[in-house]
């Protein structure tokens, strides 16, 4: 099977959606030239500037206009460049896109996909490195997605474009070049986690780029006799409770790892739910509550590396004997 990059897989999904449905359009800064990460390359040539729309640097209006477009018959894909910039459009996301359907009593739908790339990337420092998925998971009305592989980036983006809900779509900036195979499309993917590695001793729940770090840590753990089950959540909201709880019931221990700041991160939600539902040991691993620093030595402190994760994983397993879930 031919390999394709994470970025190109998404580009392919968008192109296919635009060919199939004239209501699908994309808008954002620099998308006409292919987007700053190449994730729109070739699309303006194929679909023209009326459907791949270059916009001013006006985040609030990029997002707000997309709401108006979505309400009146289009299905916009909104490029926010990096998630950090979407904070200039937070009213449009939180008060407008997310609330419209509910507060107007179901009169309208807001079928838009807002692409908010996350993650530490290449010495980009404090304002281009954040993983803000927990912010949006907190908001009723939003679906929050964080793909980890090229295949998932294609399938999750396609499903998000088809969804009638506003979707916060969070690609990882260090994954654009990641190569992978493209199996036939899986259409029922939103809200479904993926078993990234089977194991028996502990469940490790994670998403986005941290999946790859987690698999590396799991490999290290295996060499030391610890069998780790890795679950790639794929969708942050609605998160796949059934999958996580079933795995947790089998392994008896759950560790959640994410690149985002650990304090009030989405890992806390998963850990708390597992503890409430099953009464088994849980642990979180996330970034310290510091901004990403520019210098490599500083940036490394903000990362949850495979070594760090393996260290915490071993500590957790040694400290917490496996426990049978409460009946």
């Amino acid at each position, binding site marked *: 099977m031919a390999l394709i990059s994470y970025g190109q897989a998404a580009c392919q999904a968008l192109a296919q959606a635009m060919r199939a449905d004239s209501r699908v*359009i994309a808008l954002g800064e620099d998308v006409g030239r292919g987007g700053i990460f190449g994730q729109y390359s070739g699309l303006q040539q194929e679909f023209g500037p*009326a*459907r791949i729309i270059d*916009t*001013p640097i*006006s985040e*609030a*209006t990029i*997002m*707000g*206009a*997309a*709401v*108006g*477009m*979505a*309400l*009146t*018959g*289009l299905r916009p894909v909104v490029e926010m460049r990096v998630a950090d910039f979407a904070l200039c459009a937070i*009213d*449009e996301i939180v*008060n*407008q896109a997310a609330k*419209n*359907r*509910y*507060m*107007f*009593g*179901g*009169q*309208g739908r807001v079928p838009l996909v807002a692409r908010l790339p996350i993650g530490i990337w290449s010495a980009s420092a404090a304002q281009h490195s954040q993983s803000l998925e927990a912010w949006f998971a907190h908001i*009723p*009305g*939003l*679906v929050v997605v964080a793909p980890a592989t090229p295949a998932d980036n294609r399938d999750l983006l396609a499903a998000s474009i088809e*969804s*009638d*809900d*506003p979707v916060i779509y969070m690609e990882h900036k260090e994954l654009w070049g990641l190569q992978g195979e493209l199996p036939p499309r899986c259409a029922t993917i*939103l*809200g479904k986690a993926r078993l990234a590695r089977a194991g028996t001793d502990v469940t490790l729940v994670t998403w986005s780029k941290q999946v790859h770090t987690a698999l590396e840590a799991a490999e290290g753990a295996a060499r030391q006799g610890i069998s780790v089950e890795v679950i790639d959540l794929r*969708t942050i*909201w*609605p*998160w796949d*409770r059934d999958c996580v709880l079933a795995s947790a019931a089998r392994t008896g221990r759950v560790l959640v790892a994410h690149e985002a700041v650990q304090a009030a991160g989405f890992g806390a939600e998963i850990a708390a*739910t597992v503890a409430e539902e099953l009464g088994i040991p849980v642990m979180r691993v996330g970034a310290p509550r510091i901004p990403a620093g520019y210098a490599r030595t500083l940036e490394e402190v903000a990362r949850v590396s495979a070594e760090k994760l393996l260290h915490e994983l071993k500590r957790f397993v040694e400290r917490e004997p496996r426990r049978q879930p409460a009946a």
Partner: protein
Amino acid sequence: MPASTSSVNPSPAEHLLDLYRMMARIRAFENAAEETSRGGVAVFGSATDTIALVRGPLHLSTGQEAVAAGVCANLERSDYLTSTHRGHGHTLAKGANSTAMMCELFGRATGTNHGKGGSMHIADFAVGMLGANGVVAAGIPIAVGAAHSAKIRGSSAIVACFFGDGAINRGPFLEGLNWAKIFRLPVLFVCEDNRYSATTATDAMTAGAGAAARARSMDIPAETVDGNDVLAVYHAARELAARVRSGGGPQFLHALTYRVKGHVSVDPAAYRTQSEVDGALESDPLKLAATRLAALGVAAGRIAQIDAEARSEIETALASARAAPWPRADAAYTDVQDTGAGQWH
């Protein structure tokens, strides 16, 4: 029922009577909403245990009726409109049903939003009214997007985008006007200038020559008009809407009016003098129109009859709203989202 550009050359008196009728309906609606809201919202933090029929923040457009009536008389049902937190008048003038609106203010299942929005989020998508908004200036990008959508879809609809004088100091104002201009979108921007930004006079908060000058700085043609003179609003909006409709790109109407009531219904507006209010009441839009109707030979009885009909319509709306059912509690879980519906925790 909305007046429409399709009405064929009524006499000046009949035309003004149509506009007057709309203003009278809005006035009756606002008066009824104000009356039934008494005690329904806490005054600046104090608790209320009075069970009023209309609860929560109520922003009345009393005294600003000419802007809604004069602009919307130039809109078709298929055109879109975005509004502000002070949006009852725009909604009625766009053609929404007063009973469904009053039911919404009462929080009933039969309301335009099935009780989920109330006054501040009044909307009627069926008549192109895409929603009042609780966030100042937030309707501007949405209006611009609806216009962009119309252009992409090849629709002939235009968008009337209402906002207040306070909104011109928010970023989305600049972003939205710029966007509409560079993409040459069919938007009629309407700055309904009631002179107050919540409880502060806007003048002291605004640099430069104001709303129309800011629009012109982006090469958007702008007209300033007496917003209490419904005919002046109508004619200015007619010209601007025609230009928008014929592909001339965005146009801007700055309508000067006055907010007769406080920011919300419980705001006594003690920050301004009674003489200022009294002066403004001299140019009440209904009073001005009635004077002009009399000059056109319309009998006082005819005007009184229109007032009575408006009050009667709203009485009916009130009676329906009083009798209407509450939303069932489980409706709190509907229309949140499709993916993830059921996962409430």
